[in-house]
C-alpha cells in the first residue's frame, strides 16, 4: 500500500510542545491515512511519546494544529471528549486499574462513558478478552497476571470503547522478552483487521512486517519518514543510519 494515498484520519501540522524551557516537539508534521499502521522510533527524549500523547490530549500542544477524524483539538472539552472516543491508548506501564479484575477493567469505561448496562458491558468485555486470547483470566486482578497478560488486557480495555485509532506508547518496553511476542501478535492481528495504529516502539521486526510507514524522530523533530522497505534499506539521514546501526546490531 503506498503511504501517500487515501484520506488522512490524523493530521499533525507544525505541532510544537514545550515543558518549561525544554522544547519536546519542534514543529512536527505528520499525516496518518485511515487504516494505516505507523511505527515511530527514535532515541529516548526524541519526542515520540509526547507526539502521540498530544493526539489524545494527554499533553496539550502549544502551537500548530492537530486534527483527528475531522475534529480539531482545541481547549474545547467537547472536542477533546469527541477525539478520546475515537482514540484508544495503550501505555508502557499498562496502567490497569489495580482494584478491578480484568473484566471489570474492560467494563468500566463502556458503563460510565457509553452508559450501557452492566450485563451488556460484561458481554462486550468477554468478547474482547477472547480477542486477546485470555478469557480465562477475566476474574483475576492485574497483580495476578503476567506482564504480557496485563498488556493484552490493557489493549482489550481500549478496544472496548470501539476506537477508530489506537495509539501504543512503547507497549512492549516494560515486558520480559518471552512476553513480547504475545503482545506483538495481538497487535498484528489488530493491524490485519484494519485498525489505524500509531505505535511507538523499538521492535523493528514489527515495523518491517506490519508498518505502512516508519517515522524516525530525534530531538523533537521528524527526521525521516518512509515505508519500511525503503526506511530500512536506504535511510537517507545520517541520524537515522546511526540510530538503526545502534538498535539493529544486537
Amino acid at each position, binding site marked *: 500500500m503506498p503511504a501517500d494515498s487515501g484520506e488522512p484520519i490524523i493530521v499533525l501540522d507544525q505541532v510544537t510542545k514545550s515543558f518549561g524551557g525544554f522544547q519536546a516537539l519542534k514543529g512536527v508534521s505528520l499525516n496518518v491515512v485511515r487504516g494505516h499502521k505507523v511505527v515511530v522510533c527514535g532515541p529516548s527524549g526524541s519526542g515520540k511519546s509526547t507526539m502521540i500523547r498530544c493526539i489524545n490530549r494527554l499533553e496539550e500542544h502549544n502551537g500548530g494544529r492537530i486534527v483527528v477524524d475531522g475534529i480539531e483539538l482545541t481547549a474545547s472539552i467537547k472536542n477533546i471528549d469527541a477525539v*478520546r472516543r475515537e482514540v484508544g491508548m495503550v501505555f508502557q506501564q499498562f496502567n490497569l486499574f489495580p482494584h478491578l479484575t480484568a473484566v471489570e477493567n474492560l467494563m468500566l469505561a463502556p458503563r460510565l462513558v457509553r452508559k450501557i448496562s452492566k450485563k451488556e458491558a460484561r458481554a462486550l468485555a468477554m468478547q474482547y478478552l477472547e480477542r486477546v486470547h485470555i478469557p480465562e483470566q477475566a476474574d483475576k486482578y492485574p497483580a495476578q497476571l503476567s506482564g504480557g497478560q496485563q498488556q493484552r488486557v490493557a489493549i482489550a480495555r481500549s478496544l472496548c*470503547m470501539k476506537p477508530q485509532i489506537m495509539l501504543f506508547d512503547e507497549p512492549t518496553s516494560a515486558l520480559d522478552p518471552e512476553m513480547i511476542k504475545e503482545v506483538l501478535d495481538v497487535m498484528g492481528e489488530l493491524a490485519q483487521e484494519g485498525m489505524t495504529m500509531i505505535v511507538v516502539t523499538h521492535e523493528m521486526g514489527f515495523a518491517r512486517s506490519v508498518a505502512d510507514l516508519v517515522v524516525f524522530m530525534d530531538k523533537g523533530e521528524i527526521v525521516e519518514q518512509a515505508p519500511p522497505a525503503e526506511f530500512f534499506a536506504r535511510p537517507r539521514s545520517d541520524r537515522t543510519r546511526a540510530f538503526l546501526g545502534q538498535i539493529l546490531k544486537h
Partner: protein
Amino acid sequence: MSFELALVWESLPKIVEGMGLTIELLVLSLVVGTALAVGLVLMRISGIAVLEWTAFVYTYIFRGTPMLVQLFIIYHGLAQFEAIRDSFLWVFLREPFWCAILAFSLNVAAYTAEILRGGIQGVDRGLHEAGRALGLKTHQRFLYITAPIAIRLSLPAYGNEIISLLKGTALVSLITMYDITGVARTIVAKTFAPYEIFVSAAIVYLCLTWLIQRGIGLAERRFGRYVRR
C-alpha cells in the same frame, strides 16, 4: 504499698459502665469528623486557591494545637459570649457532650484530611491518564479510580487516627463527664487506690484498641484483596 489484684477486678464492671460514653464519643466524632475530612480534602485538591488555602489554614490550626486546649476553648470559652448563649447553638454547646463531639470531630477532620490527601497522592498518575484516555470525566475518575485506591492506602494511618482518638476521649473526664477515665477518677477519689483503678481503666482501653485493630485489619484485607500476597 501493695497491689490489690482484687480491686482491679472489682472496679472493672463500673469502669465498663463508662465505656458506653467513650464509645459514643469515639463513633460519633469519627463519623462527623471523617465526613468533614472528605470535604476538606476535596477543598485541598480542588485547584481553587481560596478553598485550598482555607483548608490548609484549618488543618494547620487544628493539628497545631493540643486537643485539650481546643476542648477548653469550646467548653469554657464559648460560653462567655452572649451571642452564643442566646443562639440556638447554646442548646448543644452548654452540654459537655456536644462540646466534646465538636472538638473531637474538628480534630479528626484535620488529621483525616491529611491522611486522605496522602492516599490520593499515592495513586499512580498513569491510572489517571488511562482514565482520561478512556474518556472518563474528572468526577468519574475520582469516584471509580482514585477514591477506592486512596482509601486502601489511607487505612493503616486511619487506624492510627482512630486509636489516637480513643485515647483522646479521656480528656472529657476534665469537663465533668464520666467516660472510662472519668469513672476511674471517681472510684479513685473514694478508694484512694489510683494504681489498681487506673490499671483496670488501662485494661479496658487495651481491649477497645484490640477491637479497633481487628476491624482495621479486616478492612485492609477487604480493600486490599487485589494486592498480590
